[in-house]
Structures are given as structure tokens and as C-alpha cells.
């Protein structure tokens, strides 16, 4: 077991820069996810860790050892591929035994280890089957068993669940996490599925435009996104670009009270934490905005009257679009029990929110 240290790694393909100056530390025993939209460079980073690609610049260390330039077969990593990549000519047993046979382990030891791995993924009864006789979920588990059989220092998962249907994916997520906890292997999951990353990982690294945008726990990246890219990519968000109308220091906890306009001609008083001097980009999550259908009695400092322009009922929650007086529009997510009767488009309402739920984002281009 060992951590991964990615030290200032860049990778170019001709003129195209797939990854730029990535600095990342994956801790020992950690479940780490690399999350990003397609084309963000996450697969390139995985291939660099695996050794299928070499970095143009920088170093990669695994377990304190510099592996830059080392071929994949010398790195001792377990990799689970998106389409499983099971050997079609070998049985389940032989697939799992593959790495052990390459390592010339004694037959008895191979048998013991393969049986142990198949028990871990609950496929002991399938040892003699061939990959094409298995379901997608079973193939996935064989691929995990095969990767873990060689006792890898690091387990790399390349979009391992994207070929499974939604229900099976949920089940496999739980299983993946259980297996990871039980073996304690340092795991790097590459995914474009934010929910998967949020629910499985200890920490997440968000990649966008070839750069590491933010590294943090699921809570941190969701609640305190480092920039517009992360805020926009993870979850739903109201991004508010405003002009700072006036700034007054209240002196209380060094909070700055900022007058800004949420839409032309609609000034809003907001108390924001952090220093947002001069910056005019804010975000607030739709589920952080509270809604009252009767105006004027909320008593909150931050409030705005509006008109509901769209109602989307999703069972457990209701998604609303609220047109503020003027041009601005906010998305609001409210839980179902809040409304005895569903509001309809055209209804008047009042929105209010806590000051700490409004997050200042650094200006664009940083």
C-alpha cells in the first residue's frame, strides 16, 4: 500500500496540452476520485499513473519511488478498465490467476489467492465460466478480483461502472467501497459521474481544461467550490454575476456588507463571508434558497420578491425557476413536503437565504 505523488506533471499531444502542471498527492489507503467532464484530461492522468503514457514534464512517485518512465508491467498497479478487458479465451479462474502466473507463484498459492479473491467479489461459483457467459456486473467483479489478486500498491479504476445500468451501478458502488475498505488499497477512481465521486470518495480531484481545479473532500468541493468551473460542474448552482454597487464595512467579524445588484435595478443587501473585494461572482445552491409563498413575513435580511416562472415536480423535491423583479432568475429546489398544494407558474413568492450560503467565487481567468 502506498500513496501517489504527482509532481508538477504536464502532458502534451502535439500542440494540444492535455494536462498542465498537475500537482497532486493521493494518500495511502485513500479512495480518491478524479472527476471531470469528458476531455478534461482525467484519462490522460490515469494513463500517466498506469505508465501507458509518459509525462512531457514532471515526475510521478508511487510509494515514495519515482516511477516516471517505468513501463506499466513494472509498476505493480491493479487496473480495472471501463469495458472490463477480461481475456475472452481464459476462464474466470485463469483471468484472476493471470498476474500471479506471470509472477511465477507456486500453483498452490495461486489457487489459494484466486479463491480468496473470487470469494471477496462473491463469484466463487463462477470460476469455470468464460467472460462471455457472465453478466456485466459479474464481469466487473472479475476485473476487480483480477486487479486485486496481484496485491497492487494502487488500484486504478477507469470509469468502471459506466457500462452498467443505474440500479446495478448503485449496488456496485457500495460493493466497490466495501472491497476497498476491506483491502485498504489506495484507490484512484476516474469518473465523469459526480454523484459516484461524491458518494464513494474520501477526497475528489476535479479536473477541467487540463488543470486540477480543486482537491478536497466531497463536502468541501460541493459546499465551497474553489472557482466557477467547480461550482458549475458539481451539482446545480445559481451563478450571480454582479456589479458591486457599494461596499461598507460593518466591522463585525470582518464581514463586508456588499450592495450588489442581482439584476439590473434590483439592489440586494448581502452579508458575505470571506473577502470578495471587487469581485462580482457569487454562487448559491438552489437547495439553499428558501421560498415563501406569502411575501413580507420572512424577516430575513437577504430576501427578494419574485414570480415563479417554472415548476418541475420530481417526487421527492420540487424544482422552481423564480423570476426576480427585473431580469434575474434563480433556480430553487424545495423539498416536496413544503407545499401542501403545488405552486404554479405566475404565482408570487419571496426568496430568502442565509448570508453564509452565498459563496464568493474568484473572478474568471484565474
Amino acid at each position, binding site marked *: 500500500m502506498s500513496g501517489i505523488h504527482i509532481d508538477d506533471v504536464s502532458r502534451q499531444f502535439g500542440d494540444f496540452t492535455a494536462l498542465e502542471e498537475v500537482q497532486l498527492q493521493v494518500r495511502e489507503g485513500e479512495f480518491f476520485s478524479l472527476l471531470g467532464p469528458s476531455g478534461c484530461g482525467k484519462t490522460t492522468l490515469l494513463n500517466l499513473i498506469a505508465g501507458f503514457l509518459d509525462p512531457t514534464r514532471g515526475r510521478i512517485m508511487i510509494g515514495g519511488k519515482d516511477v516516471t518512465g517505468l*513501463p*506499466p508491467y513494472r509498476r505493480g498497479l491493479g487496473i480495472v478498465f471501463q469495458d472490463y478487458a477480461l481475456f*475472452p479465451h481464459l476462464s474466470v479462474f485463469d483471468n484472476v490467476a*493471470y498476474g500471479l502466473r506471470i509472477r511465477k507463484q507456486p500453483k498452490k498459492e495461486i489457487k489459494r489467492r484466486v479463491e480468496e479473491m473470487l470469494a471477496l467479489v462473491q463469484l466463487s461459483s463462477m470460476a469455470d465460466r468464460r467472460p462471455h457467459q457472465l453478466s456485466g456486473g459479474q464481469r466487473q467483479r472479475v476485473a476487480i478480483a483480477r486487479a486485486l489478486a496481484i496485491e497492487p500498491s494502487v488500484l486504478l479504476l477507469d470509469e468502471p461502472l459506466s457500462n452498467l445500468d443505474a440500479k446495478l451501478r448503485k449496488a456496485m458502488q457500495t460493493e466497490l467501497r466495501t472491497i476497498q475498505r476491506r483491502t485498504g488499497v489506495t484507490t484512484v477512481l476516474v469518473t465523469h459521474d459526480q454523484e459516484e465521486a461524491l458518494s464513494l470518495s474520501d477526497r475528489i480531484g476535479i479536473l477541467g481544461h487540463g488543470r486540477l481545479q480543486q482537491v478536497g473532500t466531497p463536502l468541501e468541493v460541493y459546499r465551497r467550490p474553489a472557482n466557477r468551473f467547480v461550482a458549475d460542474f458539481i451539482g446545480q448552482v445559481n451563478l450571480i454575476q454582479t456589479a458591486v454597487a457599494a461596499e461598507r464595512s460593518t466591522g463585525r467579524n470582518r464581514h463586508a456588507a456588499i450592495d450588489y445588484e442581482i439584476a439590473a435595478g434590483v439592489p440586494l443587501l448581502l452579508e458575505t463571508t470571506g473577502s470578495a473585494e471587487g469581485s462580482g461572482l457569487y454562487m448559491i445552491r438552489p437547495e439553499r434558497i428558501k421560498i415563501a409563498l406569502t411575501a413580507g413575513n420572512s424577516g430575513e435580511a437577504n430576501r427578494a420578491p419574485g414570480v415563479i416562472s417554472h415548476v418541475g415536480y420530481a417526487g421527492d423535491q420540487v424544482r422552481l425557476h423564480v423570476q426576480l423583479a427585473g431580469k434575474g432568475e434563480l433556480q430553487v429546489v424545495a423539498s416536496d413536503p413544503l407545499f401542501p398544494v403545488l405552486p404554479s407558474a405566475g404565482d408570487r413568492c419571496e426568496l430568502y437565504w442565509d448570508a453564509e450560503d452565498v459563496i464568493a467565487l474568484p473572478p474568471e481567468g484565474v
Partner: protein
Amino acid sequence: MLLLSRRKGCRVVARNTVVRRTLSFYWLMLSPALLFLLAFLVVPFIMLIVLSFREVDSLLNVLPSYSLKNYTEIFTSASYLTTIRSTLGVAALTTVIVIIAAYPAAYLLVRTGSKGLRTFFYILLISPLLTSVVIRTFAWIVIMAQNGLLNEALLKLHLIDKPLSLLWSMKAVVIAYVQVMLPFAVLPIATSMGEIQPKLRQASMSLGAGRIRTFFKVTFPLTLPGLLSGAAIVFSLAAGSYITPLLVGGRLQPLLPLSIYQQAVQVFNMPFAAALSMTLLVLVAIVVGLISWISKRWEARLHD
């Protein structure tokens, strides 16, 4: 309701008629080719089988009686048994060498990234097939003759004192065969190699296998269907070719096609030539049948 079902019935009938009409149209389109095959392949083939059981008199006139005499002569004469053995041996040796030589070429075809370069390699591989086998084989005479290119070069380099005798031997036959038949093995092997998911090689490498072990444990088993169909083609061509061994090996080499030619054109013993032909055909059929049986077994292992 009644109306509806009747109308449905009408449609079914109409569709059947259409199907029947298209089918008969296909047969019509096929009939020239089928007639051609019947007249120039099936009929002569049956005649050949019948002829092989005929006897001849001392003047080599074909007699109306039937016997197994031709076949007993082939399978009891030491010289014909040697011929059979060396025919199969040369074909097998050629097949093995061609397969070994075909793998690097197939690998190059499949792994070349640039599309233009790959097209160039394909053209390079196929272009010999555009010229006649006589010309291709004749080129080997130019290279391997006593005063040929190879001997001249070796003499100039003072590697040898006197010219090597390369032509008119089985060695020369095998060398020429390998060159002539290489494309027939490269193409099917390249095809099955191209169908292997690149991820499989990556998976093998991630599990600790280097390139060579990955080849033998993943690439080779998965290209076996291509290898076997290439082997079947090369083996049957090598066992049945006549021009190549005649030109570079000489007419006295113990090879069945040369013996058949001798019996049919020089000795003019048609029934015996027919019996030799049938012997060659059956032997090749057995080998090719065996190869395709192995291939089917292997495919079943992969997919059923």
C-alpha cells in the same frame, strides 16, 4: 372483424408471393455462375474421379474396366510414398515459416498509426499478387542463379570463393513459396489482430506481463483463428502449386504436382495422373479439414 382478418390474410399471401418472386429472381441472377461451375468444375471433377479408377493397356489407351490398381501402385511404391511425404513436408514447412514471418508484418500493418503509411504497407503487401506467379518466381531465378544477384554480391564481398548452388533444390522451392504466399497469411492474421481490443494488451501489461509475454499469452491465442485460416490457404497452395517448384526446383523434385504434370503431359497416363490428383486432393482436404476443425473448436471456446 371478418373484413380485417381477410385483409390481413391477403397481405400475408401478397408477402409470400413477393418473397417467392425475389427468391426466384436471385436464382435467375445466380444461374450463369452456377452453370459455369457445374460445367467446368463439378462435371470435370466427377470425370476425374471416374478416370482415376480406370486401367490402361501397354500403349496407355484407357480401358473400360475399373480397378484400384492406380491407387495400390501409388501407396505401395516407395518413390511415390516419398513424393507424398515430401509434398506434405514442404507444404508444412512453408506454412510454418510463412506464419512466423507473417506475424511481424501483420503487427506492422495493425499498429501503424498513420493512415497513409498503413495504406502504403497494404499496397506493398498486395502488389506482388498483381503480377503473375511466373514473373514472381522468375525473379527468384535471377536472384539465386549461379551468376545471379546473390552469388555476385557474395563473391564481390569475398564471403565465398565460388558461386553457391542455390537453385534447383527444395530449399529454393521453400524460399520462393514463402515469398509468394506471405500475403495470404498476413491478411487474415492482421484482420484478427485488428479485432483485439487494445485494452486487453494494456490489462496484460498492468498485470506484470512484458511485451513478449503479452504476445504469447494474449495476442497469439486471440489471433489463432486468423493464423489457422492463413495456414489452411498457404498449406493448400503450397501442396498444390506447380509453376513455382518447376521453375526454381526443377521438374525432378519429388512433389505431387510435378508428378501429376509428368504423368498427364509427358507419359500421357491419364488415369494414373487422375489418381495422383485425387490423392493430393484428399490429403490436402484432410489437413485443411483438421485445421478448420481446430479453428471451430477455438472459436466456440471464445464465443459459445
